């Protein structure tokens, strides 16, 4: 016989304990509608070209992932569409998120063709974010172009000092990795400003018209594995080319690049580097600086300069296995919680309260849920 019954609070979607812990969400997307964004495009020529209907999409696109989702591309808005600060606050209340780091989610820009138009849209997005979020007290990750370093620096000059800008947002993709020396002025500026560089997966997936890219037909391959591979490539490229020896205070956060690859990369890098390190001296930064080796073991840069967002967490069901994997991943120093609101891969902070791997380790839980983020964000 039932001895107690109560109606559940429909406004709370995660365990009650989540509301007692500080939760910083590193990846909360807002999505201004196109008409709103247009008002912020400053150049009339760019606006004219952006708003003229040309028929077919300018370049072949690859978003096969939508075929896997019951609602197709609508999956990108499974939870809705946040357009202003009040929308964000309303969404966060359901998931016990205290501090959402919002971004404009223009993730289709890197694979578009025309640099002038890309820059115009990116700048419009940042202006929108300044008006609707930074000025409303919502910590914001502002976007910079990966395809145009001068434009990136110009944007950093425009809003880099603004209170409320908590981080800088750009993308990793299958093109030039971030270890390339042309990005040094950006790194230098970010160090000066005290802003971390967030790198989100872009909709530029594995190159089309390649044997592998064209045969990746499923969401599991495209979003599940393509992005992590590029995340690994970018991480190792930055470490081995000496980015963090030259910019030791630079912090880089990968979003949607997966996180369980950290043990593999950690041990693999150290093994290969320590076995045969004689090529380090001829990487451009080291060559220019007359240095022979990295200053530390590669895995130490992974621990100190690289962070990975956890969405989707995909935690092993057995707490012991989860705990081991978290330890091998150096999660207390490298993991950051992210929800990915409002997308089909939404990851509310349930794991931290349903798995013993976190329930039994408050320090670990706090590090992932807020401390690592607060240590590097400019809040």
């Amino acid at each position, binding site marked *: *016989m*039932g*001895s*107690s*019954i*109560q*109606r*559940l609070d*429909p406004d709370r*979607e995660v*365990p009650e304990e989540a509301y007692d812990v500080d939760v910083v969400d590193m990846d909360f997307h807002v999505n201004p*509608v196109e008409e709103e964004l247009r008002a912020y495009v400053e150049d009339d020529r760019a606006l004219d070209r952006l708003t003229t209907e040309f028929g077919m999409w300018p370049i072949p696109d690859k978003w096969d992932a939508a075929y896997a*989702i*019951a*609602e197709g*591309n*609508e*999956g990108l*808005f*499974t*939870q*809705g*569409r*946040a*357009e202003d600060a009040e*929308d964000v606050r*309303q*969404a966060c209340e359901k998931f016990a998120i205290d501090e959402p780091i919002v971004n404009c989610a223009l993730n289709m820009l890197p694979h578009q063709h025309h640099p002038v138009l890309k820059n115009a849209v990116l700048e419009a997005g940042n202006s929108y974010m300044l008006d609707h979020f930074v000025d409303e007290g919502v910590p914001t990750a502002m976007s910079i172009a990966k395809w145009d370093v001068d434009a990136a620096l110009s944007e950093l000059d425009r809003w880099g000092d603004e209170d409320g800008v908590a981080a800088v947002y750009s993308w990793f993709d299958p093109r030039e990795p971030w270890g390339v020396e042309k990005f040094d002025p950006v790194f230098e500026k970010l160090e000066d400003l005290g802003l971390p560089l967030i790198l989100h997966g872009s909709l530029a997936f594995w190159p089309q018209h390649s044997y592998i890219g064209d045969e990746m037909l499923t969401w599991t391959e495209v979003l599940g594995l393509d992005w992590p591979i590029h995340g690994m490539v970018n991480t190792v490229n930055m470490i081995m080319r000496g980015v963090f020896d030259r910019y030791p205070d630079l912090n880089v956060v990968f979003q949607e690049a997966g996180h369980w690859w950290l043990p593999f990369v950690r041990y693999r890098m150290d093994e290969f580097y320590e076995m045969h390190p004689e090529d380090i001296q001829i990487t451009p930064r080291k060559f220019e600086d007359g240095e022979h080796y990295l200053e530390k073991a590669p895995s130490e840069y992974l621990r100190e300069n690289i962070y990975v967002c956890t969405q989707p967490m995909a935690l092993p069901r057995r707490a012991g296995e989860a705990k081991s994997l978290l330890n091998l991943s150096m999660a207390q120093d490298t993991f950051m919680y992210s929800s990915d609101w*409002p997308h*089909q*891969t*939404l*990851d*509310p902070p*349930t*794991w931290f309260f*349903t798995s013993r791997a976190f329930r039994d380790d408050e320090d670990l839980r706090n590090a992932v849920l807020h401390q690592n983020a607060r240590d590097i964000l400019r809040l």
Partner: protein
Amino acid sequence: MSVETTQIDGTEYTKVAEVDEIENGRGIAVEIDGIEVAVFNADGEFYAISNRCSHQHAPLCKAGEKKINADHTWTESRGGVNAEECTVSCPWHLWEWDLETGENEASGQRIATFDVVVEGDDIYAQV
């Protein structure tokens, strides 16, 4: 909320809601002795199923809730009830659960379902 029960064919059922408390296409959730039960209205038929999606513990009772700025999206709700298919899809990741069997076809996983009877304006579930 006090516990109200009724006996049907020698089996005890617990009152979970009144008919007009659950609009068509939506659900509510109650906790009975620690067990979370979601009750849905699918075109006037009522179904009770575990309130927690086995994937990430999402509260299924939220299925069908209107999205934030739904006017600017293509579908209005977060998951929802499909009366014709007798299913509910999860508000977080759209996992689809059979309201009669509790089965998710894609994963082969199953969550609990509960017998429901309606007497007058009252909905009862056997938990």
